[in-house]
């Protein structure tokens, strides 16, 4: 079937099969390599993208369900030299070590800050619960999100 959706602000259409997953369509068909494959069971959050502003594990999301929706990946968040405030603070506060969970973590954080201007530490922790990081202990991630929220 033909899938019509908006990816990082760009009208996009392509042919997808029933069983195609959004992760594979974004990574392999559209070349959006920031969307990471960590578990393929919806447990680690590395493949998180925003669908109409909400964080979704694209590894278990059927591509056809994205019909008519707006998808945001980190490629659409900011670029080198033009970083989104979250990207800037993740960078400056070492919220990324190996960086593999970072694109998903950034998008989850963006979804939170879009809906809640100044979340408490507890709200941040609950919100990023579905994004696993093995390097940082989450402390600097929470700090980077708090700093971004304070700067808004």
């Amino acid at each position, binding site marked *: 079937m033909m899938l019509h959706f908006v990816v990082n602000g760009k009208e996009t259409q392509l042919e997808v099969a029933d069983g195609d997953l959004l992760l594979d369509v974004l990574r392999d068909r559209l070349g959006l390599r920031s969307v*990471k494959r960590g578990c393929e069971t919806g447990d*680690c959050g590395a493949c998180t993208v925003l669908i109409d502003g909400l964080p979704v594990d694209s590894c278990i999301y059927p591509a056809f369900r994205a019909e008519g929706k707006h998808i945001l990946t980190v490629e659409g968040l900011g670029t080198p030299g033009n970083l989104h405030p979250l990207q800037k603070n993740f960078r400056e506060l070492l919220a990324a*070590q190996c960086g593999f969970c970072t694109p998903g973590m950034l998008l989850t954080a963006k979804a939170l800050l879009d809906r809640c201007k100044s979340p408490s530490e507890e709200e941040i922790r609950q919100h990023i619960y579905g994004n*696993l990081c*093995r390097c*940082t*202990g989450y402390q600097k991630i929470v700090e980077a999100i708090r700093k971004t929220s304070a700067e808004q």
Partner: protein
Amino acid sequence: MQEHELEYVGKRIPRVDSELQVTGLCSYGEDYYRPGMLVAKACFSRYAHAKILKIDTSLAEKMPGVRGVITYRDVPVNRNGCGFYGIADQPILAEDTVRYRGDCIAVVAAETREQAQAAAAAVQVEYLPLPAVYDIDEAMAPDAPLLHEDLFQSNIPYHLKAYLGDVDSDFSQADYIIEGTYETQKLEHTYIEPHAALAEIEPDGKLVITTTTSRVFNYIGVLGTVLNLPMSRLQIKGTAGTGGGFGGKNEVTIEPWVALLALKTGRTVHMVLTREEDIQLSTARHPYRIHYKTGVCRDGRILAQQISLYADTGAYLALGKSQLQKATVHAAGPYHIPNIRSDGYLVFTNSKIGSAMRGMGMPQACYACESHMDFVAKQIGMDPVAFRRVNMFQDAGKLPNGQVVWSEPLRATMDRALELFEEGYRKDRPLPPHTCRGVGMALMIYPQDPSNPSSSTGAFVKVDSDGSAVVYNGHSDVGQGSATILTQIAAETLGIPVEKIRFLTADTVTTPYDEGTGASRTTYIVGTCVKNACEKCREILFKAAALHFGFADHRKFAIQNGEIYLDTYPDLHISVAQAAYLSERVYGFPVIAADSYATLSSAEDPENGHCRHYEKHAYATQIAEVEVNTDTGEISVTRLAAAHSCGRAINPMMVEGQIQGGIQMGLGQALMENLIESRDDGRVVTNTLRTYQIPTAVDMPRELKVAYVEVHDKDGPYGALGVGEPAPVPTPGAIHNAVCNALGMQINRLPLTPDRVLLAMEKRGEGGKE
């Protein structure tokens, strides 16, 4: 050089690759995509232990899209042995026997992932199942089936010793003799990126493998042997980004398979493991059972200690011996004990291979040692902190391998952790209903940089004519940030800003040898080497400056703020860029230098295990507060203070990040992580990230305070030593002690899951111990 003069060392500089990371442009294993490449899938053993009677790939070969299938028949030298110690016990592809479920029978390359998967499932194998052993007791039973009859007479390939003094005579002098047994579970590294590798053949026939690895030079050694190719025909490159390693990307796994398939098909071959495959195939942290018998005086002095350690290494050796050595030598902790008899045994079982994992045997040994210290203190009626103060190393200490170690930072970590733990803490915090609270401490000694028999590295440095520099060294930055730390060291030494330095790593053709990332050796060993090579370049720059100003003696020059100047004539200065230009283009000596650095171990005495194995030691103290819900058995770590020695913090932000991340890993070991393998068929049961749980942001303590203690090391670059590897080591002991303190009982087994806590409480109700 005075501390205030440092420009780049000691600064909170963002990672050199951070802009790529946050924009999603950093390339990880799966991102190495080539048009028209083939995709590989493996066929794994269906048994934990079996003879292979027949392998038939004819059906798989005829499946749609299949371009090549390999079995042991395609492997020129079908031995691996992980390339470290020369005992090649592990086949690249199983030939006549499978010893665990991760043994691979055949690998298929096809046009698509689905086609490869279907063909891998169509490989037909006839097995003759053999009895399997799943734990150390079964493996050590007199009638146990042997896993490696051809290499070892029993399932215990190694018995390591570390003996000091005379244990027997001193037990008789002790007022109390106290015994305890402590057990740990098998753990998964759980890097978020699974293994991935790409094999390409260049037009001239050279084979290039790009892979997620911590050790490219170990890989090329193994691959050269296995493929029977000279290293000049091979190149191993680390991926630009690697999504964590923690020791789990130390041994070759999928690389020989993609290489063989590329050679067989003449095509580029890519392989990315699924999480399920990765958990089954990759290595794990060894489960341990550690027994202590401690003779102690009424005043708290420990006179003698007998320790036996059993580590389950799974089906193959990998780095089992190296981690057991660390545990055996350091299981008595950083304590003055005149008589120690420590025996470590490595045990084969038909299960997932144990190898390096952050801390290498030390999270297990430290947990056991520190839990036993608390238990002994309780038995003799002493405060656990006071008991530690009586016995702990002061400025130096002697390990049971006879090595005398510098231990000055230990006390400072203890004092700092105690201070941090109380900082801003309100003592009147109400306790939630049905909850008890407890506090526990753990001290740590951690051996860095094992030399087996050496730990060596090399570096090239060049300064270009505009004052930019490139540093080449073969270690891998798998996320820990070493490239940034080493860039800061180079920047400081050369007087060149961080932004003008490129650091090239992990490539067997373009970068000089390095043993690889592990054992917190990089900052010290590679850092020293890079600093020395940069000093040689600086010398060349000074010579150019001397020629420029017509001074005979270039040694009078110094670098500050990118300017080369003379102490005596501050007005005479020349920029690094100008000096580099002059030396390269005018005076005819381009600014290039190489250096190497190594540590060496002494020969080991087989009688008592005496040897100088470890060049440097790190120290730490962690203190945890927990709340245990006595209805549900759930444990929450509410406060944790950690103070770690680091020599000097080259980048304080990154030191903190390492400690925070380490605590997360240690908390997982203490409370939740448990790799479970079926006792029916050896399959990993916890093969998803839902069933194998690692700590989330919610599980971490809200009051997590970390500090680094700077006592500059006499040899380390700018006084620095490593900090990353030991970070998780003291956490399980501190948390276990806090839980035991809260409940007023011993549990002595990890992880402290709610069901285990409830069971222990129930048994205590019946007057027993778990």
